[in-house]
């Protein structure tokens, strides 16, 4: 997670190419005897996103390395280390092309209540395929609990008869305006209810909060993990490793399909956003999730660089 509020580059290029480096280093206080790691560091191939080149460098040499697809269709790498080691470095290098997803301004959408109503089970009739696809993401998940508090927070945006996307954009704008970016305020384990109460957090928290609001209203939405092309502070050069992984949400809008929304920056992701993976929440697509035996206290360093290729 970034240490400062990521500022997106001012303008979305029509088409873009990037070189992304994502380096993760663990230094353990005591040797780790056994370690298993699950990596979501390989960008998902998408109609608007082409991976030109991708490499994962791992040190020390793993005793097991396999690539597979997870239940959400994301590429995942599983690693295991059987020998004692004091540190672990994983370096993902990606060259990728990203196209704009939508041409022109997005419509406000059909009234949101109609979509919610369409999702209600209606007995033994085959439901439309897009409904089945969407409804998988309509329920609580380990990091996204639901409840009346979230529905109440979302209510001012979801006024009767308002278009689904228009209402969601309004919600996104309110989260952006009312919540403060504060890396000290939360950790991976902070419950989303606490984020709502304290009104601070990082992009992950804002994504979880927005998901909780949407799903509490009965609207399917999913969590997206990825990167963002940021704008270096005025007058200074782009720094290597100064970026971070990013997170936003994706809402299913009938007729349009999944539409991404970035509540941290109050914008609809475009060619400045690079998608790694999606799932129900952070837990499904953590860039690196592992279980180690031993290790004592450990230090973790993550460095991300998103470099535009001209």
């Amino acid at each position, binding site marked *: 997670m970034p240490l400062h509020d990521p500022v997106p580059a001012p303008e979305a290029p029509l088409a873009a190419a990037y070189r992304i480096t994502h380096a993760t280093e663990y230094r353990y206080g005591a040797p780790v005897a056994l370690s298993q790691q699950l990596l979501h560091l390989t960008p998902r191939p998408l109609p608007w996103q082409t991976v030109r080149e991708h490499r994962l460098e791992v040190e020390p040499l793993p*005793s097991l390395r396999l690539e597979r697809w997870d*239940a959400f269709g994301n590429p995942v790498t599983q690693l*295991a280390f059987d020998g004692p080691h004091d540190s672990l470095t994983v370096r993902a290098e990606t060259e990728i092309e990203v196209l704009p997803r939508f041409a022109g301004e997005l419509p406000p959408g059909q009234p949101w209540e109609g979509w919610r109503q369409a999702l209600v089970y209606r007995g033994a009739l085959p439901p439309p395929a897009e409904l089945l696809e969407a409804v*998988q993401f309509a329920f609580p998940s380990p990091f996204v609990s639901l409840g009346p508090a979230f529905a109440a927070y979302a209510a001012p945006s979801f006024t009767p008869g308002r278009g689904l996307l228009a209402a969601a954009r309004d919600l996104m704008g309110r989260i952006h305006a009312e919540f403060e970016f504060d890396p000290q305020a939360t950790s991976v384990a902070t419950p989303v209810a606490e984020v709502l109460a304290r009104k601070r957090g990082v992009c992950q928290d804002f994504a979880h909060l927005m998901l909780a609001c949407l799903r509490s209203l009965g609207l399917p939405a999913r969590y997206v993990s990825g990167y963002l092309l940021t704008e270096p502070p005025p007058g200074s050069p782009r720094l290597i490793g100064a970026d971070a992984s990013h997170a936003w949400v994706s809402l299913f809008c009938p007729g349009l399909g999944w539409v991404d929304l970035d509540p941290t920056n109050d914008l609809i992701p475009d060619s400045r956003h690079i998608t790694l993976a999606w799932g129900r929440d952070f837990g499904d697509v953590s860039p690196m*999730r592992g279980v180690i035996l031993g290790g004592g206290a450990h230090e973790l360093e993550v460095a991300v660089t998103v470099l535009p290729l001209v």
Partner: protein
Amino acid sequence: MARTLLSIYPDSAGRYDEMLAAGGAVRPHWQAFFSHLDAASPEQMRARLAFVQRRIQENGVTYNVYADPKGTDRPWELDPLPLIIPADEWRQLAAAVAQRATLLNAVLADLYGPQDLLASGLLPPALVYGHGGFLWPCRQVRQPGDTFLHFYAVDLARSPDGRWWAIADRTQAPSGAGYSLENRLIVSRVFPDLFRDLKVEHLAGFFRSVQESLAHYAPDSGEGGEPPLIVLLTPGPYNETYFEHAYLARYLGFPLVEGPDLTVRGETVFLKTLTGLKRVHAILRRQDDDFCDPLELRGDSALGVPGLLQAVRAGRVLVANALGSGVVESGALPGFLPAICERLLGEPLQMPSVATWWCGEAPALKYTSEHLDQLVIKAAFPGRRFDPIFGADLKGAQREQLLARLQAEPQAYVAQELVQLSQAPTWSRSHERRLLARPAGLRVYAVATPQGYRVMPGGLARVAGGAGARVISMQRGGASKDAWVLSDEPVSTFSLLKPSIGARDVVRGGRSLSSRVVENLFWLGRYSERCDHTSRFLRVALTRLIDAGGEPGPELFAALAVGEAMGLLPPRDEAGEQAAARPPALPPTLAERLTRAVFDDAWDTGLAAGLKRLQWSATQVRERLSMDHWHAINRLNHDMQASKESRPEPGETLACLDQALLSCASLAGFTMDNMTRDDGWRFHVVGRRLERLHFLASAIAGFLALEGKDRSQGQGGLEWLLELADSTITYRSRYLSQPELLPVIDLLVLDEDNPHSVAFQAQVVGRYLGRLQQSLGGGAGEAGAPFTDDLELLLARLRSVDLSRFQGDVCGDCIGCNACEDLAAVLWALAAAVRELSDRLAMRYFTHVGDVSHQTVAA
């Protein structure tokens, strides 16, 4: 003959009565049993009830087995009268249960596979994606033979018209089959003649199918001619049904393991054993699936086996039931099963489910709101903390509140029709001779075999605590029953249990010894021995105190000084609970301190605390102890607890210590006579010997280090030492005289033929560790030296002790002789060597308990 039992048997009041037909006549399949009961004398029945109680107490059958008597463990309640089901009725019931298991298995295969049920609208998506038991990472994971549900249970109830209904399905890790086995072993002995004459179906064949089927579905089983290794995975002794896990493991012959006993290397699961890693082919799990793999499932749990799911995915191990199978444990699913059965099996559902409305459907919600009085509201998904609410109980605001809850989150609730349970006769404990009628339910089990589901002929019957109860709960005073399925053919008498309880159980040859089990056997040895010598010391002190009329005499001085130094006696300045009422200025008397050392389990080095640890370590290896062995340990704790509660006088405390020593002696007897000689046993014996060595060396060294004048209070000062080392008889038979220092030292320290001497322990430990190192390899310790090097060295120094230095009438004249100091120094060194050796053994052979896996996350 007293009046018949029927004359006061309550009317069924609209319920189906299991024993009586509508006209009040005894049903044919109950006649033999009822006549027998009716003819039995009150004395006979009392004896039978007492037998049941005793077996349950001695077998330690509980929900929550943690050995603390103040803890939450609850003795299992068993009514001696079985629930009897005739053969033709059972055939239908069994067929319906088998069909239901087949159906639920097909539902699981669909949900984790193509999801046609969702696409066709036969199942609402909310029941899948909204169910915490639907494990996303398990999607598309293939199961051998497409079998997800290996072990299935269903709770049944009988409605007033005599039909059986399914109330709830258990598909995650069904519990209770072990309890029903235990019930069967007890009840068949209460009514042995009836059991035989009525031709009751035996259970053993079912459990053999469990063994065979798991072996059949296990991948790569029989590879290299080796039988597959099947383990039973338990969350551990804190689980409420741990008793059953240990029981089943022992019965089925599967090693009982906890998550940290297993490890995944590559994509293969191994058991950590004494001799290294052994491939595991199948896991019968009693741990909930989301706790099974912290890498891919719940990450906040240290209980699981990281990497297990990938091993399943790669087809390298069978996990039964399949990870994710909890998703069909749902209050809402049964309503959809009839249509699903037609679709998936092409036949009608044979057994109805109790009428259920899932509130996620608008018409169902409407119906529920309008008929609340006739319905029970339950959570749609397990794992929610929500006790069933009877609509009729709610008035006014409460009712509005519930309706609002249903409106706000309808998909989370189901409404169920109230079931009028059938009633079964139970034997009253509070009357001399009376049958009570209690609401009853039956849990039935099925196992997947390559030929289809096989249903256990019998089950776990349960009765409610009161006549009008609406739910049956073991927590609320209910009891269990054996279920007798009558056969109209000759029954198979095949048994998995060997007929007699004897030297059969501790460790069966060829089974894999997990490191954790070995560690617990080692500690069982140490604690058994520790309880023995703690009791012995306290008896020595208490006897002398009583003999001296309650005032500590001079002959006690040395014993108390040594005991205090070793922490066997609470200090003078704190007296624990006993003296709480006394003014703080008054120090506790010696009698109070001794009583506290015996009974106060808060005194960490006292007898009560030692017994607790003993029972704890026995609990951990229960599946490896013979029933007699286990009974002896239970009885010991039970007696101690009973004595403690009676606030005993010193004389009674003494009797209690005698009893404890007797029990310890029988435990030692089991060690020598009942345990198979394998490496686990050797570690157990090494534990015993190390503990005794440590005790003797410390006690004798402590004694020798006393100033001469402090220990030479007449011969009394040596007699207690002989008693402490249980060597009085040997001494007398050899010397026929008052104890003197030289022969006492010879007997207690140097004599390698005295099983209570220091040298004997050191020599035996050396021998067994030598054997262990030979068979396990790793002959060298950390520094490259064999484990026993220090011990050998010290033993050699003992052997070279010059006994003549201890010559003399009365010690105390020996100013400047240093013989005692020199010997004490060797003995202290031995005690220190024991402590170090124990640590090194733990490092080399046992699980590192402090070393648990933990999760790391990077973004």
